[in-house]
């Protein structure tokens, strides 16, 4: 296992070393703000009774999700999971569609057919997840296999898994197949230290969940998931390796799940001190400081933040204007028709 050093060098130097300019970092920052903003407004909507069912967020994981997605290329496919709203935001899914999804409106990516973060948009390269974890990981492997068969050389798949879900058979079978065939895929483990109420030591017996890599002849990298740049760097390297035919890497992003498993869970089982420690490492605040050191002014920051606020207000309005789906459509669209195949997707 390699551990990426969280470079304590000068911000500008660091960005340069990553091949990024300040604008790129600002974009990441903005995406993180949008991500958190969406989920915070989701909470309010839930409390207002506007979101049916339950409600989940990825608070604390914004840096990891945005960091990974920023290292992907437009032609890549991504299979993110329940804490990865930042991936959708970074790939360009418009916030109103997320709100519409939350509220079961027809404008959401699933047209009210699925809820929460079970979203995706294949035209943005994002495959919508199912609940069963981590069932989408083998799907990512299949995407990577399709690139390999077609000999598409600069295309990479990304598949996610939680620390907890890495105990499931789907993880094993998918990762193993990718390893054996050296497929162009990067696996991301969102290690937020808990699987619902289950602590790590009851989920795996290694130091890191990504140590499972050793059982597949793969390398793993453990990064601080609260630092989008550290995540970006590790993922970019892993992507390079993958598309060069050197096989998959498991990149583990360590964070703390900063809220309960879902809205009904107050996370009583998480030690308070842990929340305090990790609150001090808040990915957004951390990135803000980094940018200020890199030359962003407080005014600029203010502008970004208020821009995000305005955006979300607008987007929420748009979502609320999206009609509920027509009940008569509920049972349609179970089977695809041949014409739909001819639409070139992604």
């Amino acid at each position, binding site marked *: 296992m390699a551990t990426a050093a969280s470079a304590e060098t000068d911000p500008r130097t660091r960005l340069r070393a990553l091949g990024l300019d300040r604008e790129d970092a600002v974009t990441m920052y903005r995406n993180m703000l949008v991500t958190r903003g969406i989920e915070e407004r989701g909470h309010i909507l839930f409390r207002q009774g506007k979101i049916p*069912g339950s409600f989940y967020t990825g608070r604390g994981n914004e840096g990891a999700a945005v960091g990974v997605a920023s290292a992907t290329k437009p032609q890549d496919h991504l299979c993110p999971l329940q804490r990865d709203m930042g991936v959708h935001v970074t790939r360009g899914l418009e916030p109103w569609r997320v709100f519409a999804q939350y509220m079961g409106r027809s404008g959401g990516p699933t047209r009210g057919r699925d809820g929460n973060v079970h979203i995706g948009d294949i035209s943005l390269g994002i495959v919508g997840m199912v609940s069963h974890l981590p069932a989408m990981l083998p799907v990512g492997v299949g995407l990577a296999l399709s690139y390999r068969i077609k000999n598409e050389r600069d295309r990479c798949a990304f598949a996610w898994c939680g620390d907890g879900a890495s105990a499931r058979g789907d993880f094993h079978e998918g990762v193993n197949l990718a390893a054996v065939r050296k497929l162009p895929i990067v696996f991301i483990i969102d290690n937020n230290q808990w699987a*619902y*109420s289950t602590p790590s030591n009851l*989920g795996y017996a290694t130091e890191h969940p990504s140590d499972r890599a050793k059982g597949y002849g793969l390398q793993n990298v453990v990064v601080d998931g609260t630092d989008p740049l550290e995540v970006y760097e590790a993922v970019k390297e892993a992507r390079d390796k993958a598309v060069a035919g050197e096989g998959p890497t498991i990149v583990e992003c360590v964070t703390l799940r900063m809220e309960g498993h879902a809205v009904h869970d107050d996370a009583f089982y998480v030690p308070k001190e842990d929340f305090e420690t990790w609150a001090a490492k808040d990915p957004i605040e951390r990135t803000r400081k980094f940018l200020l050191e890199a030359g962003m002014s407080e005014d600029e920051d203010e502008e970004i933040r208020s821009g995000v606020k305005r955006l979300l207000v607008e987007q929420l309005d748009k979502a609320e204007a999206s009609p509920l789906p027509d*009940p*008569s459509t*509920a049972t349609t669209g179970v089977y695809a028709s041949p014409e739909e195949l001819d639409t070139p997707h992604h």
Partner: protein
Amino acid sequence: MATMTYLQAISEGLKEEMRRDERVFIIGQDVGVYGGAFKVTDGMQKEFGEWRVIDAPLSETAIVGACTGAALGGMRPVAEMQFADFVSCAWDHLTTVSAKQYYRMGTPIPMTVRLPCGGGFSGGPFHSQMYDGYFAGCPGLKLVMPATPEDAKGMMIEAIRDPNPVLFFEHKHLYRRIKGEVPEGVYTVPFGKARVAREGADVTIVAWSAMVHVATEAAEQLAGEGIDVEVLDMRTIAPLDFEAIAKSVTKTSKAIVLYEDTKTGGFGGEISARIAEELFETLDAPVRRVATADCPIPFSPVLEKEVLPQTADVVEAVRALSAY
């Protein structure tokens, strides 16, 4: 007798049997400190300890497979699936190993898998499924689906004691909505004995789990119109108390099968077929089925309502049938 919810009754059943029989243990995700996603096992790890209420990794096959093994090792395991939907991840083990081991090897596999099932609250495609039809074609499994708190407790205990793998379908929508009198202490409700939930003379509705309540609601509405509906609560579909169905349909000559699983391929088809095959001379009208539409269960309430069987659908079906 105490009044309690369906959920409390299940908890009671578990606890009382665990106190009585130290071979009983529970394994599942978040069943320990957290007390289970629905709090069915709340407080039980404190009472019974870490090795009788076991928090498992996110591994449905390991959970259910370990139950098969522990049953062979003389225990009386109870597995909790966080939602019935996730039992798909252990479907292979249950149908391949647990269900067939006794037939092949002669070794009983006394285990229970608890399945919080069913829809009606915007759980979406993966937290709303009924799942009975997917197992009903697998000989060796018992499928039990209580509709009342009293049955839930007694059948929980019966499930634990049964020498076979039992799938215990507990309906999430009943957990806190349904209350009832529940006898104190340890008692069992035998499998394969349907219950007449409401007596009637004109039309029989065959139902189980939450649909018993939908049927009863419909029956009450129809009583006002002078249609006297009998509601049969099957309680278990494997074993199936076909005698009870025959008795009721012989009386009413008209039958509706109401089930929450997908209409096509759900177990209601089997029951409808048997009624028509075995009670052919008795029927005054074709059997009708009211069930979930043939599609995944959508999230948005307006869609979900369209897809799941509603009281109004049953009322309408009964009206059509009694006019036949």
